[in-house]
């Protein structure tokens, strides 16, 4: 046996391949390959009856081969870029609202007695354990025209002489349920970070004469930035690609990237363009992760 073969078939090697092989092959086949095919599909022509055109067409006159058509089409009409910008703004607003709501809660849990912390965290996770669709549906009831919330808001507006508004199927409904669905993603990383802070730092700041406001902004908050960035990533990315919430709670004008992609694949069946949009979304996500990582590391240097 050559030394190479001995190395290849040694127990440790064999064990390594036996353990990593099956999940590796499965994910290669059903995650990496479909992704690669989507990249290829974005450079193809749509088929006559939707889907993709066959690569070798029976009639040489028909459209075949590769093209940049879908990408040209994407940039030819500003409406597509606009939908991307809108999705970006919705994701940004959701992330900020989640941060504002999650921070006090995470801080309270982190500063609570050790015994009660696990229970308080559990209370954040439990509603998040119920089905995504149910949590969206709950807002359909809460914001419905006959629900108390709509009655109160429109009663107040009526008293001020303003025409009643519809809460359901509006940008407001989309935003509030986006926040609702993703809030735990922000609380958990923030808490994990805040829990590790050394309380003596705050005592030191206080001894140096810093008031509560300065102690927070100059000690607690800068130290919590890694938690802020990881929470923001966990909220921002799923919101950027969300299609179900605008689909269920939004009006006709609340279309986001996710809805546009869904429409291409299941509605108009222009799969090459749907693939192009998906690639654009992937690039947007990667760009965000890169910026967040960059910001996280440069901020980290000052802390």
């Amino acid at each position, binding site marked *: 046996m050559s030394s190479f073969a001995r190395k290849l078939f040694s*127990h440790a090697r064999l064990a*390594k391949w036996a*353990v*990593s092989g*099956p*999940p*590796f092959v499965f*994910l*290669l086949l*059903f*995650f*990496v*390959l*479909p992704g690669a*095919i*989507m990249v290829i*599909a974005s450079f193809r022509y749509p088929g006559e009856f939707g889907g*993709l055109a066959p690569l070798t067409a029976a009639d040489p006159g028909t459209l075949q081969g590769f093209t940049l058509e879908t990408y040209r089409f994407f940039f030819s009409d500003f409406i597509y870029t606009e939908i991307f910008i809108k999705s970006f703004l919705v994701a940004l607003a959701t992330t900020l609202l989640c941060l504002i*709501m999650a921070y*006090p*809660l995470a801080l*309270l*849990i982190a500063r609570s007695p050790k015994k009660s912390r*696990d229970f308080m*965290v559990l*209370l954040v*996770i*439990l*509603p998040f354990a119920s*089905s*995504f*669709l*149910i*949590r969206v*549906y709950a*807002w*359909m*009831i*809460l914001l*419905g025209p*006959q629900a108390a919330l709509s009655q109160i808001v429109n009663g107040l507006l009526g008293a001020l002489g303003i025409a009643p508004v519809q809460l359901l199927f509006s940008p407001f409904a989309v935003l509030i349920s986006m926040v*609702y669905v993703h*809030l*735990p993603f922000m609380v*958990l990383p923030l808490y*994990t970070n805040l829990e590790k802070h050394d309380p003596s730092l705050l005592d030191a700041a206080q001894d140096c004469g810093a*008031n509560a406001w300065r102690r927070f902004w100059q000690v607690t908050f800068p130290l919590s930035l890694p938690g802020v960035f990881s929470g923001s990533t966990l909220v921002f*990315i799923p919101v950027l*690609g*969300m299609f*179900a919430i605008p689909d*269920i709670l939004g009006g006709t004008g609340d279309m986001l990237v*996710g809805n546009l*992609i*869904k429409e291409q*694949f299941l509605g108009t069946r222009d*799969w090459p363009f749907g*693939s192009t949009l*998906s690639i654009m*979304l992937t690039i947007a996500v990667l760009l965000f992760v890169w910026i967040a990582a960059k910001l996280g590391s440069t901020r980290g240097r000052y802390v």
Partner: protein
Amino acid sequence: MTVSGAGHRGFWLWATSLGVYAFLYVPLLIVVVYSFNDSRLNAEWVGFTWHWYDVLLHDEDMLAAVGNSLFIATVSSLIATVLGTMAGIAMHRYGVKALTFMALTPVAMPEILLGVSLLLFFIQVINLTLGLVSIIIAHITFSIGFVAVIVRARLAGIDESIFEAARDLGASPWETFRHVTFPLILPGVVAGGLMAFTLSIDDFVITFFTAGVGVSTLPLRVYSMIKIAVTPEVNAVSTLLMLLTLTMIVLASKFSPDVLRGKT
């Protein structure tokens, strides 16, 4: 001065936190309460009834969807548990970077991307008729990462010297796995499996793209119901589903407390 200042701040922290907890729970409570409401409208409380649960039990489409969901969740979580456990061990012991990337990216990226790329792949490349098989494959793909992370966390908490001891005593890699590693990671494996089951039962987005026309699952059925007309039957099914996922999460946390610490 400082003491009263701190007390004041503490009060505000408590008040906002209570507000956030209320924000998390009130919507779900309303769903549960209205599932017992003797009115077609989810607007005001009329009286107590089991009517919507009765409607639910006689809804053939819904029952078929529940059956599909349970079948898909059982098969996909079993396969995902095996593959995910392997992936978790490979990530921890051998540090296979490519595998870490492949297992965790489907978890981190927007769900719709996995959904449409699998749709494209199933139809255009392997010419698979969408249905139970395509849904199961899709669910395994996104569950592997969750199982792997839980198993890896479990492995990270084990003292490495115990494996060396097994080797020194002459155990083969398989014997070491069978008698040392596996019993130690078993709680993590079970927790990961329960997690995969819950994720599969709940999944809407990826199922939506990989289900085709013939097969419906519970979330797909709920989706089409709330798109057409909101009836308290949805509240009833939601309440039961909440009860189920709650049970699964509590069970998973019994096996692996990490599940509830936001580390996964």
